[in-house]
């Protein structure tokens, strides 16, 4: 497969470690080249501007997920059977088994529990004063909620974060990160198979719903392990990325933190802006099942197309001054959760967790101060901090 001569080409590796840590200069160059750019290293068409990303996401009949959304065939084979890697009616059926547990309506019932957990986490962090925003705040909330919701047994939980991160990492190109990660993603799938076989999911959980759907012959039993992973793997790193990104942003923009403290209602839209700005998930791919034109570029049948959400979220054709963080802008059209039939099913829960943690912090913490050099995780798909040293300053501390 070769690109049309008219398609701009980009020869640099946007999945090198340096580019993974700081992808935005590459995305800016790609957007300047055109709406669709041939990546010589990965041999895919990258869709990098907002309008065309949205066009591809909404046209799920042309750009299918059923052959995988990763950049390498190993992960696309491992991911068979997931909701993520399915199309049409099969996708709708799988999504219906679990997505109803994650709608805003359903997660609203969890709001008291999320509030309780957030208060405990924030109180513990305030006592420490100097904290790691990733471990002490961003990770603590989703890991105290999601495994119970999905119904993962207590045994094996110590591996969850590593497995979930690796599952994303494995969806990149077959670089050395993906090779290591594929092994861990395989371990997660093997564990999930055992959980399904032993029926060791927690009663009343989403995992129990999956088994019930198989018992009622709505889905095949062989699909259960993949469905469990579908909802567990994406609900940790992504939210951790959004919350830690928010903490970093508010530590850099104390004026906007003061606005949130004065008016917590700003948080609803602020979450959209946080997801736009941080784009915890860089990109997923699709396969074009027919020849199709996108932004004036003819994409041949069977080509793999990379939808770069993180680039769309910084496209100056869509956003005024896209590289500035502004919680008052209307960021509701951000593509950080994807869009269309594959739009993130867990976004209601992600919004609830992020908003609740930030609201509890805003009630109690006057200033979030940077307290050291942060570092980023190296992951092909997830863009997030690995370490974020912060100091939480309360009103009492300022007074004393």
């Amino acid at each position: 497969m070769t690109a049309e001569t008219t398609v701009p080409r980009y020869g640099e590796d946007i999945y090198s470690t340096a580019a993974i840590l700081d992808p935005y200069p590459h995305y800016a160059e790609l957007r300047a080249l055109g709406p669709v750019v041939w990546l010589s290293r990965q041999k895919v068409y990258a869709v990098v501007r907002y309008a065309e990303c949205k066009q591809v996401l909404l046209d799920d009949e042309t750009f299918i997920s059923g052959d995988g959304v990763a950049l390498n065939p190993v992960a696309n084979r491992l991911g068979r059977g997931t909701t993520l890697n399915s199309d049409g009616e099969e996708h709708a059926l799988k999504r219906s088994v679990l997505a109803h547990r994650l709608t805003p309506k359903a997660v609203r019932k969890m709001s008291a529990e999320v509030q309780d957990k957030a208060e405990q986490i924030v109180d513990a962090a305030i006592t420490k004063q100097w904290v790691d925003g990733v471990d002490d705040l961003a990770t603590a909330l989703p890991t105290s909620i999601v495994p119970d919701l999905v119904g993962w047994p207590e045994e094996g939980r110590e591996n969850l974060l590593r497995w979930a991160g690796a599952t994303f990492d494995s969806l990149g190109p077959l670089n050395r990160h993906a090779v290591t990660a594929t092994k861990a993603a395989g371990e997660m799938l093997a564990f999930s198979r055992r959980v399904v076989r032993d029926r060791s999911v927690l009663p009343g959980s989403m995992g129990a719903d999956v088994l019930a759907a198989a018992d009622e012959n709505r889905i095949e039993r062989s699909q259960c392990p993949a469905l469990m992973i579908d909802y567990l793997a994406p609900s940790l790193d992504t939210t951790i990325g959004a919350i830690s990104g928010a903490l970093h942003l508010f530590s850099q923009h104390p004026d906007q933190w003061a606005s949130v403290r004065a008016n917590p209602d700003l948080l609803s839209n602020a979450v959209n802006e946080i997801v736009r700005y941080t784009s915890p998930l860089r990109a997923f791919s699709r396969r074009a099942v027919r020849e199709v034109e996108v932004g004036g570029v003819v994409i041949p049948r069977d080509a793999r197309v990379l939808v770069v959400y993180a680039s769309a979220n910084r496209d100056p054709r869509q956003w005024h001054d896209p590289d500035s963080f502004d919680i008052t802008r209307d960021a509701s059209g951000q593509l950080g959760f994807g869009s269309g039939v594959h739009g993130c099913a867990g976004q209601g829960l992600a919004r609830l967790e992020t908003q609740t943690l930030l609201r509890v912090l805003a009630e109690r913490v006057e200033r979030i101060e940077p307290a050291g050099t942060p570092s980023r995780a190296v992951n092909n798909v997830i863009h997030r901090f690995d370490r974020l040293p912060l100091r939480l300053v309360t009103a009492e501390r300022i007074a004393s």
Partner: protein
Amino acid sequence: MKIDVDWDRCEGHGICAEQAPEVFSLDDEGELHHAYDGADIPDEFAAGARSAVGVCPVAALREQT
């Protein structure tokens, strides 16, 4: 203009209600209500309604053509 809601797709994320509160709202149960279901949306609400179509995270809203 008219807007159709694909009720099978709608998951009640409520982003449309923030764009066009006169047209879309969530009730106390979290169910979406479409004030102009099957009816013409008044011109003064049309811009908000169009942007609601654009931002629905699961593409459940469609403008009738």
